[in-house]
């Protein structure tokens, strides 16, 4: 399938939003004017979700911004709801006939704030691929399988749906010397060898002709049966080889995904470990501060008690008056005891403990008025206390203690509030997601490897059977020279296919360099090498930091263009930080793509509109 042209992307119910992007007809580019929060990022993310994950694996795989996994359904709506994504596109087959495709993903469920890891409580996801307006339809995972084999959308959606996030990924990949291997692996995955298949088909066609002709010549029934069997076995062999090659391709794709997930896991693990360490350091810091402040409070309190006599006896006159009263009257001055004693005697109950007073108790209470203080009391009462100036300001100390206690409480609250931030919690959630993905992908690779091994064995058995059938058939002997040569030639093209892999890097490097030159000018170029990775060149000097941010962003664009396997390019906010290169980028896109779909901010229209599409289409979202 070739010449893919996207005609419509419709989103209905995604987080309660509804919008439709209807592209201009085939042969024309389209610019949508989409202001903030109108669906630019969403469109790219939904396309990636639909093309990356088959129906059976799509639940909790949607990612939004840096939230992994993210919810699809409207979290402000109660009860059952659905989100529908429709993608329409056309493509031509080898004969140049155009076919129409409509992929639809319906997600049903409801939003539940208590549901984890997202608020989506999905009851089912339904994928459908309608071909040529209902002439054929693929449902469920079959829809994904069809798109995967016919268009390889799953492999290149990250590139033909381009945004700042992908640009950043590429920039990181190209600037990290430790990731050159990943970069080269990606590029090798991009390599396609359509000619190998074409040559194989021709050679197999020749083999079929030999069998047909041999079959037509035989009169012996046994030989005819032999030829029939041979044809069937060769057919089986071709089918198995195709299956095996496809499985190998799937292994390579999954290995790449696994590598990406493993790198992400490592990255997340480091971030989480750092976050935890920071949390501990912060906690310990508060704990030490609280311990220090508490000690200060205790020391100050001890001091206050120790120096109590220096600051408690500041009102000597009052105390001396009490002393005089006690000394002269032999009893405590009013109202200290008189009313209490009288009340007890009047009520017949102890006013302190509430017990009824018996005769003996009443007598004892009456005697209290006449009680004589011991010698020490007399001595105490006999001298006057002298007014003393406090040695220190107790009020100041009290205020300081109060301040220290408040400080301790504040630190304690801070310490208690230290727990995982939303960002850290997000990191953990993403780590769990990635962990699950790694396990799933590893499982798939093991299964695929088992399937490849199984097919290799079947292929070996079939080849032996074919050889045996060929040798048994005397009519085929006259064509032996052709049959032997067919096998030799197939081996030659397979070997050539392997050799070309080493040239892929140079070819892609050349294409990226051409792109960079066309946008940044003839002084600039790019180089991709297995030893140095992807670099921007200026006046023949290459480096990972050359060209500044805008130059590296342009390099990312050109890399993505070289890596995609379909022609259309859908870009979210194309200008990014490319500075004065907007018009050059627009011109470059026009010259290199059959279909450009730009989701522009209103401020970008002046740069891209006149060159790419003179009639930009404004987009607004409908809520509900």
């Amino acid at each position: 399938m070739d010449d893919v042209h996207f005609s419509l992307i419709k989103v209905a119910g995604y987080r309660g939003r509804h919008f439709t992007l209807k592209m201009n007809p085939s042969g024309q580019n389209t610019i949508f004017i989409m202001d903030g929060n109108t669906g630019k990022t969403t469109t790219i993310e939904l396309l990636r979700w639909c093309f990356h994950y088959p129906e059976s694996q799509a639940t909790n795989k949607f990612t939004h911004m840096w939230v992994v996994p993210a919810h699809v359904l409207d979290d402000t709506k109660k009860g059952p709801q659905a989100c529908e994504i429709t993608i329409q596109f056309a493509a031509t087959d080898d004969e140049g006939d155009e076919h129409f495709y409509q992929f639809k993903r319906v997600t049903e469920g409801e939003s539940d704030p208590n549901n984890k890891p997202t608020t989506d409580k999905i009851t089912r996801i339904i994928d459908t691929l309608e071909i040529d307006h209902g002439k054929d339809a693929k449902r469920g995972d079959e829809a994904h399988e069809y798109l995967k084999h016919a268009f390889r959308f799953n492999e290149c959606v990250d590139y033909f749906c381009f945004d700042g996030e992908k640009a950043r990924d590429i920039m990181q990949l190209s600037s990290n010397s430790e990731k050159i291997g990943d970069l080269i692996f990606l590029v090798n995955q991009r390599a396609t060898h359509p000619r190998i298949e074409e040559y194989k088909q021709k050679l197999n066609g020749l083999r079929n002709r030999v069998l047909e002709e041999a079959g037509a010549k035989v009169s012996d029934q046994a030989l005819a049966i032999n030829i029939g069997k041979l044809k069937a076995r060769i057919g089986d062999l071709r089918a198995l080889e195709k299956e095996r090659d496809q499985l190998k391709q799937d292994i390579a794709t999954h290995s790449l995904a696994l590598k990406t997930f493993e790198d992400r896991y490592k990255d997340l693990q480091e971030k989480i470990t750092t976050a935890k360490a920071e949390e501990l350091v912060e906690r310990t810091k508060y704990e030490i501060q609280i311990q220090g402040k508490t000690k200060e409070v205790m020391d100050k309190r001890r001091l206050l008690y120790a120096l109590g006599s220096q600051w408690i006896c500041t009102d000597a006159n009052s105390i001396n008056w009490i002393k005089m009263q006690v000394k002269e009257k032999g009893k405590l001055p009013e109202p200290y005891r008189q009313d209490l004693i009288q009340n007890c005697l009047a009520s017949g109950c102890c006013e302190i403990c509430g017990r009824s007073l018996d005769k003996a108790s009443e007598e004892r209470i009456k005697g209290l008025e006449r009680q004589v203080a011991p010698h020490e009391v007399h001595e105490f009462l006999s001298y006057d206390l002298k007014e003393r100036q406090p040695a220190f300001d107790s009020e100041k100390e009290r205020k300081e203690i109060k301040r220290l206690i408040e400080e301790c409480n504040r630190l304690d609250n801070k310490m208690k509030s230290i727990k995982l931030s939303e960002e850290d919690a997000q990191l953990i959630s993403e780590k769990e997601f990635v962990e699950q993905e790694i396990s799933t992908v590893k499982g798939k690779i093991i299964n695929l490897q088992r399937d490849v091994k199984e097919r290799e064995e079947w292929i070996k058995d079939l080849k032996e059977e074919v050889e045996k059938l060929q040798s048994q058939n005397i009519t085929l002997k006259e064509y032996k020279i052709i049959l032997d040569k067919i096998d030799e030639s197939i081996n030659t093209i397979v070997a050539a296919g392997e050799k070309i892999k080493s040239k892929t890097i140079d070819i892609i490097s050349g294409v990226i360099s051409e792109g960079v030159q066309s946008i940044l000018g003839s002084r600039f170029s790019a180089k991709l090498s297995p030893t140095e990775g992807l670099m921007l060149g200026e006046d023949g000097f290459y480096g990972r930091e050359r060209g500044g941010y805008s130059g590296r962003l342009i390099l990312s664009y050109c890399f993505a263009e070289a890596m995609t396997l379909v022609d259309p390019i859908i870009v979210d906010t194309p200008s990014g930080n490319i500075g004065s290169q907007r018009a050059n980028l627009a011109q470059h896109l026009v010259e290199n793509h059959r279909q450009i779909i730009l989701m522009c901010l209103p401020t970008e229209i002046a740069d891209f509109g006149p060159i790419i599409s003179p009639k930009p289409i404004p987009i607004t979202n409908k809520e509900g």
Partner: protein
Amino acid sequence: MKKRESKKQIAIQKRIEEVMNQEFEKLIAESGDDPLLKLIRQGKIDSLSLEEIKTYLGGKKDG
């Protein structure tokens, strides 16, 4: 079935494929004098009869 009108531009992916194919053809040509591959490159493999191919291969073998 509708035939698609194609734009003049050569898309980047097409260009990559073209270069890859050129390289592949070069490798096939360099891989020696494979008579069947030569016939495919010349576009003759489907038009020649089996007898002619046999003779051609026999000649190549003898020569």
